[in-house]
């Protein structure tokens, strides 16, 4: 029992890491039907900028808003350079290549600025584990789970309660109609990219003390998060959290009860099943695409 609890806790912590990254995919998909495939690299840049700030003597908690601003700017740049031209010419696939290309460029820049090695991110909380229901949990893991939920709740609230958020939702529902109603949809899309990269950067500094920090940290995480976004559904915030937790726990349980060599398989099998049975994801709304 103790082992199962431990595995589930570790799975949840890992799953929430995936979920916060996947959340960024959902944000941009909601407004523009496009994804930022450089999401993992936005996360990496956030973590590295955060590390530099901490190295300069900035307090961890003070550093977070600065990293958020940096993330927002970075996201806006990605949208302006990579996505807007593709949307303007109504290209179906242009944005895929351009966001991947920008991701690679960011990674190379990071390699040149911060070097190639994985670096240690000093933990703002004590690094000794806490006993919880007979299992060990790191304070940082709790912070990631709480931080992720808070962040998603904040964005949901924003979308529902503020005029800006309503513009985002309207753009999501029908971009053309929103534009005719006087909403500057281009700006809304830029804004959603800024928000998406901001959440990735924030995720980066939250998870960095648990993972290692380096130019390649985003690659695997970005891919896993993409699987989570597909499993949970690209249109549902709830789905992202549930999808993340399912994937995280599935990995840990397979690793322990089956074999650590097959750890990554169940998540991908789940992905295939979801795609076959419910292509919109577990919680996603089935979209009818009018042609």
């Amino acid at each position: 029992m103790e082992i199962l609890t431990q595995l589930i806790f570790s799975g949840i912590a890992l799953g929430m890491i995936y979920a916060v990254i996947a959340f960024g995919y959902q944000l941009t998909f909601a407004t523009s039907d496009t994804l930022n495939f450089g999401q993992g690299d936005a996360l990496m840049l956030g973590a590295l900028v955060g590390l530099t700030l901490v190295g300069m003597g900035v307090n961890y908690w003070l550093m977070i808003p600065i990293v958020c601003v940096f993330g927002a700017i970075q996201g806006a740049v990605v949208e302006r350079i990579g996505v807007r031209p593709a949307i303007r010419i109504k290209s179906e696939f242009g944005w895929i290549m351009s966001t991947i290309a920008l991701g690679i460029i960011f990674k190379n820049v990071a390699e040149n600025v911060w070097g190639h090695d994985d670096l240690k991110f000093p933990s703002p909380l004590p690094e000794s584990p806490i006993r919880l229901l007979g299992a060990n949990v790191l304070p940082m893991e709790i912070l990631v789970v709480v931080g992720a939920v808070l962040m998603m709740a904040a964005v949901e609230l924003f979308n529902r309660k503020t005029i800006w958020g309503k513009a985002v939702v309207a753009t999501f529902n029908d971009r053309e109609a929103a534009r005719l109603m006087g909403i500057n949809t281009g700006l809304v899309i830029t804004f959603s990219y800024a928000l998406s990269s901001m959440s990735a950067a924030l995720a980066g500094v939250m998870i960095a003390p648990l993972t290692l920090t380096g130019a390649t940290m985003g690659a695997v995480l970005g891919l896993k998060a993409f699987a989570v976004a597909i499993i949970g559904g690209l249109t549902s915030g709830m789905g992202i959290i549930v999808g993340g937790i399912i994937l995280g726990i599935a990995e840990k349980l397979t690793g322990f009860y089956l074999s650590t060599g097959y750890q990554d398989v169940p998540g991908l099998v789940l992905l295939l099943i979801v795609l076959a049975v419910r292509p919109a994801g577990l919680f996603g709304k089935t979209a009818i695409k009018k042609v």
Partner: protein
Amino acid sequence: MTLAIRLSAVALACMAATAFAADPIKIGVDGPFTGGSSSMGVSMRDGVRLAADEINKAGGVLGRQIQLVERDDEAKNERGAQIAQELINKEHVVAVVGYINTGVGLASERFFQDAKIPVMNNVATGSVLTHQFDDQPENYVFRNSANDSIQAPMIVEEAVTRRGFKKVAILADSTNYGQLGRADLEKALALKGIKPVAVEKFNIKDVDMTAQLLKAKEAGAEVVLTYGIGPELAQIANGMTKLGWKVPMIGSWTLSMANYIDNAGPGGEGARMPQTFIQEPTTPKRQSFIISYLKTFAPKNNRMDSPVSAAQGYDSVYLLAAAIKQAGSTDGPKIKDALENLKTPVEGVVTTYNKPFSKGDHEAITANIPVFGEVKGNRVVYAYADDLKKASEVRVKDVNAKGALPTVKK
């Protein structure tokens, strides 16, 4: 001093300089200077640079200067193969030193073998590397690092015999390096009549080792043997801290990598691994090496990122230089013959190489040379006080040294 004498001195110096510059000896240096293995690659390159610099300052080899042609293989096999062809056909190198990753070495060496250009493998440890061309009359691949068939039994000896652990878990990464090493560990354990209680795998960039560690813990493991590289090894140590389960970690030499030590922090202390060189000034040669390395490259906290790679890189150049000098030529087959029959001992940092190679044996390091290092206070120190005390007596190659696994035949 008259003007005439001064002028003629300048003229002489110029002539000497042009004579050197006209015909340098080109040596290729290949390693990963970027990416996950770069701490080893860069330390190796710095060691190589240091040695070449010293040789050049002392007048070069055969009166000619050594010129290094450095190439970054990014730890990619196909990149290594491209570089090998470039070094042979475009740069016309006389010999090549380097290779950190066994896969890259395997992919590149055949080109040098065909071109009859000697390769001095100075870091990669895959046992098969020097046996790739056993079926050919001549073998141009040499090595001065401790290969896996030496390291695996050393790890097992340390865990089982010296420290008396009976229940052993193996954690290895899913790369060639990790899996070949795991196989060697299992073989070495079998020779002691021990079957590991858990054999677990992890991937590069895995951020959570809970499942692997819980399995080892549940199986009652008293020690964890590792084969992997720095960042993931650090995650293993961090995972142990998290689970509140602390057993000794003993593993391949990569546990000495700076990115293991830094990322694992206090949880990584006490890990032990075989080392051919530990950053301690135990002989005058080692002392001068450490001093000039620190002075030239100024690593963080005066700690070499990978002391083993730096020392082996440094020695590899001296071995080649000695062979070129003895051959009196830069002709590949002649250098190879000289390497196989080096008449004068070469004093290196790792050991003094007295007849390090012969026709059938291209391994300079035997099982008696490496010692155990331990992570202590954020650096690697001698694990046993006895080894440190005796460190000034250089351990030299002993072909009859026991402990190595039977050589793999290709």
